[in-house]
């Protein structure tokens, strides 16, 4: 299994003999192609008179050799070729049309920066346009002219309300538990472990409850929105809506935004409660704080302002998650891979925007003294 060739009087002769299965002699191949590339060859003859069995690894060698000969304008002749091998090699060259892929253009740095700026501006415009459409759609709903099916809203509500109770409860319980543990380690050094209850109560109600629900719902419901709407894009259902003159924002986005915005604050209340229970679990059972005392300190720490701040965060997160999910679903490409990408982008963008919004809200509340 070797490539025997010689070059005599500018004529390359390749004699194939024996079996060529799993042929992977890169060095021999390089030598053969190098002979053609050297420019000293004016004619090539491939003899397959003594060839035994072969597979695609031989065809690859022949394909590359013939391609190199064509590039160098060297005529190739075949001697005693098995018809099927000859046909296979010919098939490899039967390309009816050259691929018309756009050529990559390397721009100078300033132009690259400009192109990036333009594409960023387009993305911002597109995003703002989508928010505008959603607001218009909400206005139409308020005036009773939106094309929204009640059943779609109820279906979305069911999906993001009681079906999420289990996971929200579990995660919030664990977060309360972790908060209590982490707090207890520090507070114990001052003999103030009783304040674990206050730490958990304030932490959960003010922000942690809302953030945990936000992250869970971004991964659960935001992703599901992007995937469901993205699949509708792949199946041309969104095209059908558009050509029927039905506003996509009314039909697909509005019920989802309404459902999530409505359900997240309730889930935040649940998360607050479960977090406090988790903290109590650690406080009472592991730190040996008397139950009555833990309960009293928790009640003392609970404050309506913190509770409402948490709910407000939840409301904002509901809007952010649903907008991100629907936006990436609607702007999804038309293949399965795009649906996956849209789902990932929806979750990542929702979480990033939730954190950004938390920063903005915290700053505003700080300025307002809330």
């Amino acid at each position: 299994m070797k490539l025997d060739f010689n070059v005599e009087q500018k004529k390359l002769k390749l004699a194939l003999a024996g079996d060529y299965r799993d042929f992977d002699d890169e060095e021999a191949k390089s030598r053969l192609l190098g002979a053609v590339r050297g420019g000293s060859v004016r004619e090539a003859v491939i003899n397959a008179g003594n060839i035994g069995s072969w597979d695609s690894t031989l065809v690859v060698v022949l394909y590359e050799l013939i391609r190199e000969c064509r590039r160098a304008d060297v005529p190739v002749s075949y001697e005693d070729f098995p018809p099927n091998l000859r046909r296979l090699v010919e098939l490899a060259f039967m390309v009816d049309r050259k691929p018309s892929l756009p050529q990559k253009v390397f721009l100078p740095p300033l132009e690259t920066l400009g192109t990036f700026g333009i594409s960023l501006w387009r993305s911002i415009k597109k995003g703002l346009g989508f928010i505008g459409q959603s607001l218009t759609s909400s206005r139409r709903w308020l005036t009773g002219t939106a094309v929204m099916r009640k059943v779609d809203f109820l279906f979305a509500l069911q999906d993001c309300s009681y079906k999420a109770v289990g996971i929200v409860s579990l995660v919030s319980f664990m977060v309360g538990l972790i908060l209590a543990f982490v707090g207890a380690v520090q507070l114990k050094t001052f003999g103030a472990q009783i304040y674990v209850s206050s730490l958990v109560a304030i932490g959960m109600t003010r922000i942690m409850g809302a953030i945990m629900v936000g992250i869970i719902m971004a991964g659960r419901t935001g992703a599901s929105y992007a995937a469901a709407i993205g699949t509708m894009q792949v199946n041309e259902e969104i095209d059908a809506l558009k050509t029927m003159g039905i506003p996509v924002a009314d039909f697909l986005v509005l019920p989802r935004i309404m459902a999530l915005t409505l359900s997240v604050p309730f889930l935040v209340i649940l998360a607050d409660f479960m977090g406090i229970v988790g903290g109590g679990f650690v406080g009472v059972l592991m730190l040996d704080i008397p139950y009555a005392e833990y309960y009293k300190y928790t009640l003392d720490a609970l404050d309506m302002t913190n509770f409402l701040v948490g709910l407000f965060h939840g409301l904002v997160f509901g809007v952010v998650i649903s907008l991100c999910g629907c936006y990436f679903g609607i702007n999804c490409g038309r293949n399965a891979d795009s649906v996956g990408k849209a789902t990932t982008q929806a979750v990542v963008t929702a979480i990033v925007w939730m954190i950004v919004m938390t920063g903005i809200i915290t700053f505003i509340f700080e300025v307002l003294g809330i």
Partner: protein
Amino acid sequence: MSNTKTQISVRNLTVAYGDFVLLKNADFDINKGDVFIIMGASGGGKSSLLRVLTGLVPAASGQIVIDGVDFTAATESERSKIMQKCGILYQSGALFSSMTLAENIALPLRQYTDYSDKLISELVSLKLALVGLTGFEEFYPSEISGGMKKRAGLARALALDPGIVYFDEPSAGLDPISSKMLDDLIIDINRSLGTTIVVVTHELDSIFAIGTNSVFLDAETKSIIARGNPRELLKNPPNEEVYKFLTRGAEKKYAK
């Protein structure tokens, strides 16, 4: 420019996605009652042309006039009015998976008419009966076969009694019998309702069975290189590309 029978008039139309041009300066007319075929090899821009004709993608340049109204320059509400006169059957059927067949077909009726629930229900049953799906009202798209989905999609496309129905690759993914059934259905609708039919396809059997007029899009030159009745084009092919396409490239068998 266009005579009284012309329903869709396309002038100097260029279809492009950004800098990537798919079709340049296309000119053709579709007459009322035609079964008009947009054919050509894959990648030739047939489906993209259909997306431009239905307003899903804006034209890069040129003009589309539908029933005397400039579709390319129309406002959103004018477009919506024009599209109410058009039905579209997408390649996949594009039925809304969360709705039953009856709800799918009722959707455009609820959107554009003030009909009572009873009348809508009767119309839905009629449209389903027209496509041979009597009794499938409460089925979901996932519960029926591919061919049935296309027929249900056609029933939805016919919901508002459109003057024009567009079909995007109606035979794609169908077995020969279902494909033939769909072709027969297209002919029936065309003959009985006088509906203008515009079909994007490269299925030769369908092209010859239903087409009364056509354009052939060429991917190389990005232009229309043939037009006319497909059977006439087969008899007198204007160029080798069209001849090869209409004979499945079997030159030897069909050589003149």
